[in-house]
């Protein structure tokens, strides 16, 4: 079984320096996307659980619309933003666990022996997040429509909503990657998962901020960036085109992505650990 390395028509050795940055990024992204699509459990549970909560809480809390000053008559219109954020948190864990697995198994070492650049690895590993983000966003929106949710901002608003939710998924996925680089173990990432959900509940997920009675809770929700992610999405559903809400939503999502990518760079370099 000799390995004949002199294959006709092929250069004896690959070009020095490896592939370009874009090509490397796309190769890594492709792998991440393929992995995600092949793990059906990763697709199904993050779809079902948020929708389950949406269904239950959407009905259980429907009388909240009777609170004076509640911005809509249909509680589901208010609540539909929550599955998008919950789904993004699941994406975060998936991305983190995937990268942690690469670290634990030594696959990252294998990649380190190639000319793979840190930036290509960091951005490329978000490929799976893109797949999950798109699938989730479409499903949540369709289920929302099926349960009577209407978008005041119309078709254009739906597209902007999709874009914002995918950006949020990227941001959380990058956060998951950062945790993986720091902690290096999938179990540790999964242990942090509940903390992410705490940030979701300590926000304006169930009631508008101005209707939260408990002062300290309202203050936390005001300082919690997750509130603005929710409100950005929610504004497209119940308000229409609210420039401030959208700016804050996109702003915080972008900030999450940029900050986590920047923090991940030195951590990734250290993990790739080569001269």
């Amino acid at each position, binding site marked *: 079984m000799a390995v004949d390395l002199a294959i006709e028509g092929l250069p004896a050795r690959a070009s020095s320096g490896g592939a370009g940055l874009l090509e490397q990024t796309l190769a890594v992204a492709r792998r991440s996307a393929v992995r995600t699509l092949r793990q059906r459990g990763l697709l199904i*549970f993050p779809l079902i659980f948020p929708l*389950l909560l949406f269904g*239950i*809480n959407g*009905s*259980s*809390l*429907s*009388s*909240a619309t*009777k*609170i*004076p000053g509640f911005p809509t008559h249909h509680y589901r219109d208010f609540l539909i933003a929550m599955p998008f954020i919950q789904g993004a948190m699941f994406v975060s864990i998936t991305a983190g666990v995937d990268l942690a697995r690469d670290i634990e198994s030594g696959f990252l070492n294998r990649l380190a022996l190639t000319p793979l650049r840190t930036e290509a690895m960091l951005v490329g590993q978000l490929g799976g997040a893109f797949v999950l983000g798109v699938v989730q966003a479409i499903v949540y929106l369709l289920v929302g429509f099926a349960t009577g949710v209407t978008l005041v901002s119309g078709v254009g608003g739906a597209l902007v909503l999709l874009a914002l939710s995918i950006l949020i998924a990227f941001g959380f996925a990058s956060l998951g990657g950062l945790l993986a680089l720091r902690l290096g173990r999938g179990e540790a990432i999964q242990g942090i998962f*509940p903390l992410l959900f*705490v940030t979701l*509940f*300590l926000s304006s997920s*169930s*009631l508008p901020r101005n*209707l*939260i*009675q*408990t002062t*300290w*809770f309202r203050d936390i*929700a005001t300082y919690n960036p997750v509130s603005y992610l929710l409100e950005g999405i929610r504004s497209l559903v119940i308000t229409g085109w609210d420039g401030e809400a959208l700016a804050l939503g996109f702003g915080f999502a972008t900030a999450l992505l940029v900050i986590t990518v920047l923090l991940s760079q030195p951590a990734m370099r250290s993990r790739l650990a080569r001269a």
Partner: protein
Amino acid sequence: MTRFLSVARGVAWRSIHNTVVSPAILVPSIIFPLFFLVAFAGGLSRISDVPNFHYDPGYTSFQFVFVFLQSAAFGGVFTGFGIARDFDSGFARRLLLAAPRRSGIIAGYTIGALLRWAITGTIVTVAALIAGMNVDGNGVQLVGLLGLGIAMNLVAALWACGIAMFTRTEQAGALIQMPVFLLLFLAPVFVPINLLTSWIHDVANINPVTAVLEAGRGLLAGSPVKVAVAFAALAGGAAVMALFARRGLASAERAG
């Protein structure tokens, strides 16, 4: 009987000993109820402004009952995770080999679950009191509330025990947890049942947890309602789950 008790004592002792040696085991079963208390009582207190929302002790007390019972239920669920882990590691086989009366193993796990819940239940109660919960029930009524918690813990622990023994793997965690989660949340969690609408109202109407919740809230408010129904539901649940757990044990014995 002596052998049964000695097995139960041994298994329960191990459960408590492991908790004392690694208190981190308790952290999830403490954190989740506290978190729900904070999120619901703190974040949703305005719900009590909804017309026809009547609960004299206030929204914190209203939510405390749910969180108290939920902590009891999840205390049982987490026991199931531990049992599944014992099967995965092979320790459960050691127990089956060593125990002269194997049904004592189930009793031991459930006693362990109850003793651990004593800790989390206390912490949750203290947290609610600090948060300003009003207690309008008298001593007997509060003991009644405690009784509901104990019974809830027992039912959940037996359920979890059964599933863990049938499946004998940690991967059955979702199967243990999800039905309990659904039963808890398909009930009047945020508002009384009279304020629920559409399908959730119909489901909550037939959900036995609804009776338990309403009984608990009544006891805390000093106006007991449906107490007998609640205890009957829990007793029935415990009987059914005890059989289920026993069948699970038999399945584990057959698997060797």
